[in-house]
């Protein structure tokens, strides 16, 4: 994996007040967060992205309900829908199997409901992407803020660690580790273990990007006199780090998170596609793609559906993330 998003702005000066650009007098009684929200609300593209993100999350949360209303259990075979000779769905446009009972058609060979598998696949995708992002952000922000504030040897050690992690061949490592870790670890086994492992690999090895951004911003924030003011009143380091500095870092953390989530979705899909992710019969978008690719010339529909699902999700997060960045720092546009 190379750098998921550019980190060139990491050394830029932290400007929490940047959100005020062009607001004129309309700021009375509003926090910087409220001003950013006012601006974000006016950005139609970002708001559509955000709405789509919320829909996807709801879809993942209510997957059991949705499949019971509009679909069939993910593991249920419907061989009656399949042509026994050609192994293709019998009905629907382009032999997709689409009908009132199977909204997105059925799988070739087994005849499982694609709609249900997409809906449940969203769960895996979002769960892993969110938790991995959370892990990266927690580790990265903490180490970044500590390195930036304390400086000295603490900073040297953390900055070196960041370099090591940034140079790490993550994909190769993930493939190797997924092959090695089997059986029961920490009371987890099977797909529970797989999911935990993916979250750990994707999350733990990605903290250095956000770490570097937060470190750079902290370096410039700590020169602000409000930090000295807090010290001169007797504030201890944890207070300064988490009560004075952290609130000023919420903007870069939020933006980076919304842009890291789609990268992690793609990464999880790639691992599942390569067969080192979550295993069958648990539905994943990457796994569905992997099954569809060898037969794409005969059954293109089967490949299009998970492909489009991944595309829409990644796009929605990116549109929202870009809009969020513009809303928080309009001058960076």
């Amino acid at each position, binding site marked *: 994996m190379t750098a998921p998003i550019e980190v060139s702005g990491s050394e830029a000066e932290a400007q929490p007040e940047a959100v005020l650009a062009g607001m004129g007098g309309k700021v009375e009684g509003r926090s910087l967060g409220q001003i950013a929200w006012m601006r974000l609300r006016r950005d139609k593209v970002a708001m559509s992205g955000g709405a789509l993100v919320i829909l996807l999350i709801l879809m993942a949360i209510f997957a059991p309900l949705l499949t019971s209303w509009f679909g069939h259990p993910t593991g249920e075979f419907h061989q009656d829908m399949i042509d026994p000779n050609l192994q293709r769905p019998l009905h629907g446009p382009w032999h997709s199997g689409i009908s009132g009972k199977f909204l997105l058609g059925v799988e070739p060979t087994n005849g499982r409901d694609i709609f249900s598998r997409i809906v449940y696949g969203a769960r895996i995708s979002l769960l892993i992407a969110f938790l991995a992002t959370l892990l990266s952000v927690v580790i990265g922000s903490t180490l970044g803020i500590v390195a930036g504030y304390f400086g000295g040897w603490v900073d040297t050690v953390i900055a070196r660690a960041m370099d090591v992690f940034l140079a790490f061949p993550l994909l190769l490592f993930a493939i190797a580790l997924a092959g090695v870790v089997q059986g029961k670890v920490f009371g987890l086994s099977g797909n529970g273990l797989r999911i935990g492992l993916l979250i750990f690999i994707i999350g733990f090895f990605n903290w250095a990007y956000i770490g570097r951004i937060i470190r750079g911003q902290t370096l410039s924030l700590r020169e602000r*006199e409000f930090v000295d003011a807090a010290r001169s*009143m007797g504030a201890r380091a944890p207070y300064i780090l988490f009560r*004075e500095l952290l609130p000023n870092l919420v903007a870069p953390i939020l933006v980076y998170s919304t842009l890291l989530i789609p990268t992690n979705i793609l990464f999880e899909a790639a691992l599942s596609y390569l067969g080192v992710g979550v295993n069958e019969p648990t539905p994943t978008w990457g796994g569905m793609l992997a099954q569809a690719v060898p037969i794409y010339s005969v059954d293109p529909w089967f490949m299009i559906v998970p492909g489009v699902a991944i595309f829409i999700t990644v796009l929605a997060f990116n549109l929202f993330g870009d809009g969020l960045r513009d809303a928080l720092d309009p001058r960076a546009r």
Partner: protein
Amino acid sequence: MVTTPDTTVVEEPRPAGPEGEVLLEVSGLRKHFPVTRGAVVKRQVGAVKAVDGVDFTVRAGRTLGLVGESGCGKTTTGRMITRLLEPTDGRIVFEGRDITHVSQGTMRPLRRDIQMIFQDPYSSLNPRKTVGSIVGAPFRLQNVATEAGVKKAVQDLLDVVGLNPEHYNRYPHEFSGGQRQRIGIARTLALRPKLIVADEPVSALDVSIQAQVVNLLEDLQDEFHLTYVVIAHDLSVVRHISDQVGVMYLGKMVELGDNESLYDGPMHPYTVALLSAVPVPDPSVRGGRERIRLQGDVPSPLNPPPACRFHTRCWKAQEVCGQVEPPMVELKPGHQVACHFPENAPPDAESRVAKAAGIA
């Protein structure tokens, strides 16, 4: 002795001993910032001598003005007094207690007594916090109880500094520079300090606002029995508020005297030059004074000129100035200067300086 801040009520002013008693004593104070080279293995290749031997005392209820061009070490001095910076050498004695190197833990309860007003009102207030939580933070940090709650205490403070107490929930970006500086002042007052170091409290403000803030500081001094060290880069700002004025040049104190004596008869050529740059409203007074333009820039504190540091720019400089450092000599009562050839000085001044320097 380690005192943990116990919960006490400080609604009352806490005067710092009898008026006129020594509150702060600074002697031989130095701060050298090491200059290092090399990315991994750092070698020290020199030091910025930001403050290089400064002495003064401040008496309770009085104001010392510290003046000098930008870069001469005023902020660094202020930060050492408030112990935001660790002095390299010298002594800081506050209320008879040596606080030069006390640990941050020991310093914490003492911080109630020594507060600082910062230079840049845009950088000294956290943009993510409301005025209420900014001004209320000292109460929480020092575990100080208030009679009617923190909110009431904060609103009283806002009122004292001339802000609308209803603006408690507003954010710093909603205020002008002058109002922000008032918020900063309210914050320093929260703990009823004895000593306030004000680092160029008005230099970031419009000229029209400057007088208002200076007047506020004066009013507060009477009301809360405060002792001030007020830093400024030109002599006009501290003129009315100071009892004593110290002039700094390249990390050294070059002249220190009672307000009137110093303004009426500046002795150090540098002070004379600074004063000549101050606009004098009354043309008849201006008569004798010609504006003196200093040539060249302030030399680098990394490599300051030897002996009298001002000799590279001084129009009175002679050979001795670059060879023998002029000592601080009290040439008039309550008025010291470090110069071989002082202006406005008594006739025997030069020989007294030479004697003190050991070259007579």
